[in-house]
């Protein structure tokens, strides 16, 4: 157990009896003029260390930002600081620059590269005040070779510490795209955001000494801003604000749970432990920099996951929560990450991580209905590859044509991870973050919209593939569809590829509202429920638990009485509206009341 220097020692110097981690928000930003200094301190035991940490609380940066309307590109790329989050850490008000990578690209990046190779020494020296014992144990190892990566070449990692190169994207592709396209975009957007705050008469989230962060009131304009991306260093605050974190926050409870975690025993603990190092092995912050020293991030991840398992026993630990928390921790404190997890698993993705994962089946059923309505060619293809004559016979028994809601097609196993992990791992990092921005602003209906957009893109791919083969679409076989759904999203390095689909107004599904989604969820839950009642004695896993969750999803009676399965088209034409069997719903309702 130990720490490394992703966190500054200042944050820890007054830590209470509960060893809670330091403020986390701030580790994203590096003033460009300081990059070299900082990097050195982050990865080596250099003498500049003290100096650079002091420097990071510089006043200049905030001046530039308060005088925001005229901020220059240089200023935007330069001195960004990050606000504090939890009250617990208010006293530690300085913003430390804890990222190894600068957010907006830096003219000093060449220098950074030259500095590689100095890591491996005394990564945890920042913690001597807090843990002198551990410090003694640690020998300064001189460029100790590690198994897979003896050196950290910072140019290989993106601004959040993720390795740029993935199985689907080369580093070169990433660099070209980021430098030529995304970095200018981010700088431009940041400037627009500053203007937006200024017009709304609000101080930006990174204003020094700000007690209460506030975002402008919701509007079409703000929604458009969010869709174009929230500035990376404001994301933590923005997510918290838009997801209404303060509404769920119970002060002190997280700390209490962490204390109680000590006595927590259970099956989940073992699974959590196994997943800690399988969460973001490709991210610097989650990587052990020194043999036997556990990264601070891993410790935070453990605390949040265990606390959550204690807090929410109906979920406990479900694989995929590790990814969600891991990403949250890159942008906010542990406490906030914890409460955001409560919001995500409860309000945004209801039932998705429960013991029986019924919410996953419901979400996939909703997606199937969405495909049927809005991307019918994909719906047909999935039906064709998923159901044979046997299944059709089964459907005959129920006779309502909704067998695919009860028996979710195998291909949807891939899309189920889109929902469970909120696209982490399914989309490249920057694209994922853009989805997260919108999810918190627009609520969970955005998950459906983005999934349908993905299928729109996949549809295009399939058409291209089919025409190149100069044959009928039936030649696109099961495996190709599977593999496209599984792999194509991973190549969408530029968020605009995906967001252009969302922005296209002629895609009817853009008009879907949260109410539409809620109705549709209920419809699917009801369909599944009739099946699970039938099969109650037949199958051991389709029993009462499914029923319970379905019933919970059905709880909202007034929406339940709506006779659409969702998806009202905003155009009002009503042509795409599909009605479901009202009699059936009445019957189920009566049965449930009994």
């Amino acid at each position, binding site marked *: 157990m130990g720490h490394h220097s992703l966190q500054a020692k200042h944050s820890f110097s007054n830590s209470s009896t509960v060893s809670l981690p330091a403020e986390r928000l701030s580790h994203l930003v590096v003033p460009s003029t300081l990059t070299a200094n900082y990097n050195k301190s982050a990865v080596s035991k250099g003498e500049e260390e003290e100096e650079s940490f002091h420097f990071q609380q510089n006043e200049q940066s905030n001046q530039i930002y308060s005088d925001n309307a005229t901020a220059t590109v240089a200023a935007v790329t330069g001195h960004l600081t990050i606000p504090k989050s939890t009250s617990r850490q208010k006293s530690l008000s300085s913003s430390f620059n804890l990222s190894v990578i600068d957010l907006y690209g830096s003219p000093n990046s060449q220098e950074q590269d030259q500095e590689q190779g100095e890591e491996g020494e005394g990564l945890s020296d920042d913690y001597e005040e807090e843990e002198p014992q551990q410090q003694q144990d640690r020998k300064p190892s001189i460029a100790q070779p590690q198994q*897979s990566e003896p050196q950290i070449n910072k140019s290989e990692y993106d601004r959040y510490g993720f390795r740029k190169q993935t199985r689907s994207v080369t580093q070169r592709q990433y660099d070209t795209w980021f430098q030529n396209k995304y970095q200018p975009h981010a700088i431009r957007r940041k400037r627009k955001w500053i203007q937006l705050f200024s017009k709304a008469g609000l101080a930006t989230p990174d204003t020094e000494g700000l007690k209460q962060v506030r975002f402008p009131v919701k509007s079409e304009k703000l929604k458009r801003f969010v869709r174009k991306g929230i500035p990376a260093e404001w994301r933590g605050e923005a997510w918290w604000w838009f997801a209404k974190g303060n509404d769920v926050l119970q002060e002190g409870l997280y700390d209490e749970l962490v204390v109680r975690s000590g006595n927590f025993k259970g099956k989940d603990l073992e699974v959590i432990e*196994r997943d800690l190092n*399988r*969460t973001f092995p490709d991210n610097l912050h989650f990587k052990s920099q020194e043999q036997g020293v556990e990264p601070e991030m891993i410790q935070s991840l453990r605390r949040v996951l265990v606390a959550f398992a204690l807090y929410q026993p109906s979920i406990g630990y479900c*694989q*995929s929560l*590790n990814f969600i928390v891991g990403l949250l921790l890159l942008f906010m404190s542990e406490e906030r990450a914890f409460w955001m997890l409560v919001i995500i698993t409860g309000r945004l993705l209801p039932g998705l991580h429960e013991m029986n*994962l019924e919410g996953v089946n419901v979400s996939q059923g909703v997606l199937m209905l969405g495909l049927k309505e809005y991307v019918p060619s994909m719906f047909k293809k999935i039906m064709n590859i998923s159901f044979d004559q046997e299944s059709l016979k089964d459907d005959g028994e129920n006779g309502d044509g909704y067998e695919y809601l009860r028996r979710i097609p195998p291909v949807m196993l891939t899309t189920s991870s889109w929902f469970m992990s909120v696209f982490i791992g399914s989309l490249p990092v920057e694209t994922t973050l853009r989805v997260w921005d919108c999810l918190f602003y627009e609520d969970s209906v955005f998950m459906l919209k983005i999934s349908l957009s993905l299928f729109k893109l996949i549809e295009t791919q399939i058409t291209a593939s089919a025409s190149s083969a100069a044959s009928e679409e039936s030649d696109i*076989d099961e495996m190709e569809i599977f593999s496209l759904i599984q792999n194509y999203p991973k190549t969408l390095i530029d968020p605009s590829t995906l967001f252009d689909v969302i922005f296209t107004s002629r895609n009817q599904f853009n008009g879907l509202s949260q109410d539409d989604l809620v109705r549709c969820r209920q419809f699917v839950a009801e369909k599944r429920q009739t099946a699970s009642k039938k099969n109650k004695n037949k199958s051991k896993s389709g029993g009462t638990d499914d029923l319970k969750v379905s019933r919970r999803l059905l709880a909202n009676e007034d929406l339940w009485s709506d006779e659409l399965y969702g998806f009202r088209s905003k155009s009002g034409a009503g042509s795409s509206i599909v009605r479901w069997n009202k009699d059936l719903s009445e019957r189920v309702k009566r049965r449930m009341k009994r």
Partner: protein
Amino acid sequence: MAIKKKTLLKVIILGDSGVGKTSLMQQFVNGKFSHQYKATIGADFLTKELTIDDKTVTMQIWDTAGQERFQSLGVAFYRGADCCVLVYDVTNQKSFDNISSWKDEFLIQANVKDPENFPFVIIGNKVDVDESKKIVTQKKAQQYAVNLGNLPIFQTSAKEAINIDQAFDVIARNALQQEENEEFNGDFDDAININLESENQGCAC
């Protein structure tokens, strides 16, 4: 474009979380090992073309999430499997003890017609570790495999690529035989593999 109606073998890999299912699949298909695999959510799949005694087949390998609760998502895709690989970690007794539960779970969910003869292959992974860390001995495991219905068992290391090809060769042969048996028994699933009786891949229509 792929040749139509080729033989498709569907293989499902099951086992506790962290036993190395993803690593096994990656090692077999791509010949690579990485320390950087993430926990699998839902399922991933890879395909590989193989030649078994002059017959070209495509193996579709499904890598699944190991956490118990994910079994409730498995119903649909277990169906139509031609072989099921049960993986445990030689350093983890519990993962070994759970092998028979994974087997039962599969048989229930896959709705296998002839459970007695359905091909399972057991893999004890991570044999590259230090002897002192090995908890499940080879002898014990082999005895267990015999008791479980004389199932083939392999001791592998996805990391060091030990025994991977041997194991998957047996998996492929078993899957192919299963596929042929099903064909012979007039399975409804006729979307694939219509001319298995003839030796070469010519059209049988």
